[in-house]
């Protein structure tokens, strides 16, 4: 009996091995069409596409290719660029645009008109591009925009808290499913009654919004909210069958799985599943490139799922895919550098790693050593001991940039203020200055050379994740040179609750991203708010808070930019978040089928610029 069993198993094994002993066919190798194979590292792909997709994994990338927002935002220039809409203006009380002769917003007049006005909102006029259609051929109109924004504010129908957040600056409110204040106006939805007459021939393309009286109010409305097709969703969305239903009806589920959008690509349903997503270029996409050419150069995009980064890297090296849409660590650089047919993208990072000091712990968490961090000269000495160039060389294999002390990256040339960077660049000078400062404050040292506070060694813990151990080791060596001891302590699985918000830490490592599109939120979160925000060290500085608040509420964009400039040196001189480095975004692509890849700050090589410029190798 046992012998028979063994024989059966051996036979079974032989079958597995004989059938297994045949390599997969990797379709890219023999594909002569204009199809780009993109490897993505994720747990799985979505198979259902609720229009306002989750923020996880590849879902936002797919969403941005199937659907569109009103405008896109150019981080480098701070300008809105055309997408579904082509123009927008703030308008005065007569509905006339508040613009300069060159068409730009006249911020001085805007401030004059609305700063002291009894009006609690800013009216915004939007003009859509003509000839835009949904992927099923239906024309896209302002009624789709009205429907999208209206349902976004009406949680009873949308059941989507994200949409509530995105539309929070729109003065269009629902209470218990009933409209209590209207802030969106179209030809068919009360524009004339509100005093915004719209001509018959403009009824599909012109609309007005009432937004909060802050300049940042339009950013999310314009660049985050993906527009929904009214003709698809209005007939099926009800209070019982919400847009983001927890128990979707068969028809709703069908619509999730067969998305209709205004984006440059559409989903090829029968060639997509949880491990591969196929997108086909829309030949009738309304935005065109130079000479009326197609804006996006790739006809078909196949996203291939890899659950393990190493496997995805080998798949790229062996020609199973064209691009790897994942940032890889600088440790992998040597793997790519020696290879032919590989384009290596080392894009400038937009994310800065900082050392955060707990400068203002809650009363119960104070102790004499932590009190030392309240002294700005002490903090300056720590900042002086950090040498970003050395850190980048040792920890990032030279794959990174220095970050300004004002925490605005130098690449944003119009908004970076060099006055924030006043510390000397010479390494030895810095250490001398740091020691001079500390000699004044804490001249006594113990046998190992560490400084003493009332005969107790000044020693701190730096909370970090295992991946940050190398950085913290570097800081240990540097701070030892100025007589300050630091030790690594693990952050744990829920640091916000256990350490950071309750103030139970000395120092920690934290990432920061400041850009023009997020300063309104991020400056508040990192330097002003004392609750559950990113201001873990509970910095409380009246001058900085006032400046940030003025920056957020001014109606003069030029003044806002001036204030952003002024805020940077203030941040730098507080030495509260000490910049460590900004690591490059490293990614790779093959050049044997496609060339002309684009390197974009903060992005992998798979980015919109690449898709618009890429060229198929004949």
């Amino acid at each position, binding site marked *: 009996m*046992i012998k028979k*069993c*063994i024989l059966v*198993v051996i036979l*079974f*094994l032989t079958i*597995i*091995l004989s*059938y*297994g*002993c*045949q*390599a*997969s066919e990797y379709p890219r190798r023999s594909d002569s069409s204009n199809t780009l194979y993109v490897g993505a590292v994720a*747990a*799985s792909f*979505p*198979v*259902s*596409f*609720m229009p306002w997709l*989750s923020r*996880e994994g590849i*879902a936002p990338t797919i969403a941005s290719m199937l659907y569109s927002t009103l405008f896109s935002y150019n981080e480098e220039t701070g300008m809105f660029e055309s997408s579904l809409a082509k123009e927008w203006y703030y308008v005065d009380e007569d509905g006339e645009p508040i613009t300069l002769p060159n068409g730009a917003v006249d911020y001085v007049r805007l401030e004059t008109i609305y700063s002291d006005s009894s009006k609690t909102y800013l009216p915004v006029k939007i003009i859509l591009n003509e000839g835009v259609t949904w992927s099923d051929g239906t024309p896209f109109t302002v009624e789709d925009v009205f429907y999208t924004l209206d349902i976004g504010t009406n*949680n009873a129908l949308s*059941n989507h*808290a*994200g949409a*509530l*957040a*995105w539309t*929070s*600056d729109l003065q269009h409110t629902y209470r218990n499913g009933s409209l209590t204040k209207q802030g969106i106006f179209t030809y068919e939805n009360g524009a004339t009654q509100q005093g915004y007459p719209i001509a018959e021939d403009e009824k599909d393309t012109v609309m007005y919004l009432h937004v909060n009286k*802050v300049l*940042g*109010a339009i950013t*999310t409305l314009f660049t985050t909210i993906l527009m929904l097709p009214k003709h698809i969703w209005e007939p099926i969305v009800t209070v019982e069958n919400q847009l*983001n239903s*927890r*128990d*979707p009806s068969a028809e709703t589920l069908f619509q*999730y799985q067969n998305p209709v959008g205004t984006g440059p690509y559409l989903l090829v349903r029968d060639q997509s*599943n*949880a*491990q591969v997503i196929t997108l086909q270029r829309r030949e009738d996409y309304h935005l065109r490139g130079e000479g009326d050419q197609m804006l996006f150069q790739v006809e078909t995009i196949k996203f291939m799922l*890899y*659950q393990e980064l190493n*496997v995805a890297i*080998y*798949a790229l090296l*062996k020609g*199973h895919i064209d691009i790897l849409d994942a940032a890889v660590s600088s440790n992998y650089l040597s793997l790519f550098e020696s290879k032919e047919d590989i384009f290596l993208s080392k894009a400038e990072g937009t994310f800065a790693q900082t050392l955060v000091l707990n400068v203002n712990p809650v009363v119960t968490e104070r102790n004499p050593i932590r009190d030392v961090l309240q002294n700005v000269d002490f903090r300056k000495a720590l900042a002086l001991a950090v040498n970003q160039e050395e850190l980048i060389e040792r920890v990032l294999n030279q794959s990174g940039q220095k970050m300004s002390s004002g925490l605005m990256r130098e690449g944003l040339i119009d908004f970076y203020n060099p006055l924030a960077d006043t510390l000397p660049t010479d390494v030895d000078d810095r250490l001398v200055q740091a020691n001079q400062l500390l000699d004044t404050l804490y001249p006594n040292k113990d046998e190992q050379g560490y400084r003493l506070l009332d005969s107790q060694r000044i020693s701190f813990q730096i909370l970090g994740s295992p991946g940050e151990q190398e950085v913290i080791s570097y800081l240990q060596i540097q701070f030892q040179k100025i007589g300050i001891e630091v030790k690594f302590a693990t952050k744990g*699985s*829920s640091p*916000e*609750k*256990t350490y950071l918000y309750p103030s139970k830490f000395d120092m920690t490592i934290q990432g920061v991203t400041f850009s023009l599109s997020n300063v*309104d*939120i991020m400056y508040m979160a990192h330097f002003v708010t004392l609750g*559950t925000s990113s201001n873990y060290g509970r910095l409380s500085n009246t001058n900085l808070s006032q400046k940030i608040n003025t920056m957020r509420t001014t109606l003069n964009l030029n003044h806002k930019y001036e204030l952003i400039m002024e805020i940077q040196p203030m941040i730098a001189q507080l030495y509260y978040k000490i910049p460590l480095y900004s690591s490059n975004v490293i990614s790779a692509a093959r050049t044997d089928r496609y060339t002309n890849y684009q390197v974009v700050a903060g992005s992998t090589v798979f980015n919109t610029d690449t898709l618009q410029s890429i060229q198929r190798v004949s």
Partner: protein
Amino acid sequence: MQKSYWIKRVLYAVFIFLIVMTLNFFIPRIGVDDPAARYYPPQGNMSEIEYEIIKQATREQYGFDVSTFQQYLNYVSKLTQFDLGTSFRSGSPKVSDLIKERLPWTLVLSVTNLIICLTIGITLGSLAAWKRGRWQDTVLLNASTISTALPAFFIALILSFYLGFELELFPAYTNPNMVSQFDWSFEAIKVVLANAALPIISMAIGGIISYAQGTRNSVIAVTNEDFILTARSKGLSQRSVLYKHTLRNAMLPIVTSIGMSISGLIGGAVIIEQIFNWNGMGTLFLEANSTNDYPLMMGIMLFMSSFAIVANLVTELCYSLLDPRVTVGDKR
């Protein structure tokens, strides 16, 4: 006597299930003050009041708007109807549907692996014990040492890179259309076999050696017993002594190992599935974890735990069949 032992074991398993169910509910909630705040950090220029409205909408959407105890009661009530809840992912699929979809694919790997490990492992182990001190035994002991130092995921990576990517003898990772195009046709089965080969080999290498080592030790222990000497002195053939007397009596520890392997059938291949892009329960769990999909995580954990509890129960019941002294011991 055996009946009361069985009832006691079943009650004990139910008790363990209740504890697991409760822990499964509370552990994901440890360290999370307000799940709503995690989902939607404050955006734009929203006021505290507006933000509170948004958080409340999130709480209502996901059932966090009632007390934790009430949430627990709702959870238990749903479980009594075999409802594991609804996933957070787009389209709100039922957790039980997702498990049903992925479970067979994990079982393809793990059951095949178990069968291979058992048959080859026990055979090799018996052989090594029978040839104790000779080259067969030495090879097994050395292989065991090496296998202990090489975890399955490492073997999987090596096999994937050399046999898959470099030599292209096997598919380096699963064909993305394997699951969606599976239709029980011969061609589809061939595709599954081709794609399952490397994952199974990766898992089986360690498993075979582990079973062989366990069997060897167990058989050697029994070989030294008096009744084996008696059997031999009666003039029974070597084969008869090995199969009828030694192996049978050496089975109890092996059954324990089998029980443990069965408990780990569903969750034991997480990393292997990840390396080979195998769309099974392991990757489903990683997916739930990476997207903070609590209902899915809780559903998978509960399913895996329940499976392990049942597997352990069956193993214990098998003990009593194999060796009646087990129930006597329990009574004592």
